[in-house]
């Protein structure tokens, strides 16, 4: 991901000999480059330090945390993690989150790509209206819907249940998913779908055997963004999923921090934070390139 690509340099060298790569740097250049590095390093430190500090504190006891923000833990034990996982219920919330986010992710990608595919590649009356309906969902704040949503779920006996939370996640992730996959399906070539249709493939099999596999790159980036969005979701669960057994990580974490008082186990709180961050950190390390290039494509478009 270097910012200067070798081919471009070679070209520049050939065309404009005076702009060689090895052109001597002026003194001012060194100062600017130096200052830029210093500023960027400082900001990187500002980003990294709180995260590292939280990880460090997750190994300390509460009294060690109160004693000094700098001191290292006396013993590097996993006691806090055990407490967080068992007594604070983080373990349970963790599994709830995996079930809810996992199911919602599969469903929203399936339903979202199906709807986007139909909207992008078929002509029928009402197509534009439906498209704009999905667009509208991206525009209004969830807060406008949250009160009636509560009663919709209540009326369907889905309030405070995991299926209720899953279907709500799916519904609210749909507009984003449809919007981006719509653009993606539009960009796929027509010839292949036509060839499949000539070969006698039905609409169903054309989608699942040909179009969906072709859309894989688009699906991958939308899946990552949906994963992050759903894993980090807070408002929807605290509003419609209030039974403690069904809590997801974000709400369990907030409740744990909310009861902060003198008796709170701060070490365990830090451990809970680290447990919540760990999955996204792993995702980030694996998919960091893809994530950044999705943002990049969005910028250049």
């Amino acid at each position: 991901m270097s910012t200067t690509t070798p081919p471009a340099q070679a070209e520049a060298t050939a065309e404009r000999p005076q702009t060689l790569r090895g052109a001597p740097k002026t003194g001012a250049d060194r100062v600017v480059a130096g200052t830029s590095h210093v500023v960027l390093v400082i900001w990187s430190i500002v980003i990294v330090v709180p995260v590292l500090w939280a990880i460090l504190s997750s190994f300390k006891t509460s009294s060690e945390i109160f004693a000094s923000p700098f001191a290292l833990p006396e013993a590097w034990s996993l006691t806090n993690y055990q407490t967080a996982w068992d007594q604070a219920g983080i373990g349970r919330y963790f599994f709830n989150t995996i079930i809810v986010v996992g199911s919602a992710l599969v469903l929203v990608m399936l339903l979202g790509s199906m709807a986007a595919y139909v909207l992008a590649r078929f002509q029928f009356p009402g197509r534009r209206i439906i498209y704009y309906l999905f667009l509208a969902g991206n525009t209004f704040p969830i807060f406008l819907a949250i009160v009636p949503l509560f009663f919709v779920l209540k009326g369907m006996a889905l309030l405070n249940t995991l299926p209720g939370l899953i279907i709500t996640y799916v519904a609210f992730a749909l507009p984003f998913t449809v919007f981006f996959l719509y653009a993606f399906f539009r960009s796929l070539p027509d010839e292949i779908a036509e060839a499949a249709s000539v070969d006698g493939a039905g609409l169903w099999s054309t989608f699942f055997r040909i179009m969906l596999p072709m859309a894989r790159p688009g699906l991958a980036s939308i899946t990552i963004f949906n994963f992050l969005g759903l894993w980090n979701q807070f408002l929807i669960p605290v509003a419609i999923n209030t039974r403690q057994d069904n809590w997801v990580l974000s709400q369990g974490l907030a409740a744990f921090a909310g009861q902060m008082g003198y008796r709170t186990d701060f070490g365990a709180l830090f451990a809970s934070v680290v447990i919540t961050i760990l999955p996204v950190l792993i995702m980030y390390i694996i998919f960091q390139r893809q994530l950044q290039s999705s943002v990049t494509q969005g910028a250049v478009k």
Partner: protein
Amino acid sequence: MTHANVAATPGSSTAPRRRRSPLTFDKASFFAVFLGLPLIIYVIFVISPFAQAFYYSLTNWSGFSPDMKFIGLKNYQRLFSDEIFLKALGNNVFLAIVLPLTTIILALALATMATVGGSSVGEVRGLRGSALYRVVTFFPYVVPAVAIGIIWSMMYDPSSGLVNGILVDVLQVKSLDSFAWLGDPRTAMLATIFVILWSMTGFYMVLFIAAIQGVDKEIFEAARLDGAGRFRTAVSITVPLIRENVQTAYVYLGILALDAFVYMQVMNSAGGPEYATVVMSQRLFKAAFTDGQAGMASAMGVVLAVVTLLFASLVFLVNRLTGGESEGKKER
């Protein structure tokens, strides 16, 4: 839906094949499942609540009992004479102005340094190692806001937090000893804004770096040959060229600022000292789920939605008036 056609490129006539099969089982089931199923879920759980909110906002419904009386605009009248709500509205507006501005300026400055911080002689090129900076600064964007809020409320802790630890113990600013950043009405809001800034800057930095790299390099070289300095280039060349990205960033950050629920709820769940950090979403949540004022909460939701739409249109309008791309060009 009986007209369902395979959409070839617009205008091309592949009609014969399409007309051949009016409505087979394959086609009917395909449309019912592919479009019908997502649409039903979406309408029940998203569109219908949005629409119902407008109606509920005109009632005195508590949410606890089925009793509901139509009271016209009374909820709105009460809202606009409710001091705490007005304070919250003011805080949201303040956030929507300050948060995008600071985040975008910082992100632009960092992006400029990472892209054009290299040599001023020869080809315009980026700073060595800028990939690493991007990876690091982007990271908070993926961390759950709840976790960020908790980490930072601990960072800001008056006695055992790292912020005062550095300021008091290391830098010897003794006047800040045990200073409660989130507990003092003078600093609570700015301290909170810094946290959101902290989490968002990396994302927009990456966005702007991509936008700057998408600009034709010869434009920068031309500016340089004309004798434009780096700062001048950044302000007069770079920003106008990537103004569409800046506009997008402004809208997204503004929408985030008008919500701000998670950060506020985690760092100061009661609204902060003297309601210094209270925002509309917190009042709405309290009215709906603690106070049993479903009608009133819906009215707050409507106000929040209207302010959000106004904000977005304002940004587009300002961009147009100051010479942004015209509508036609944007719709490419």
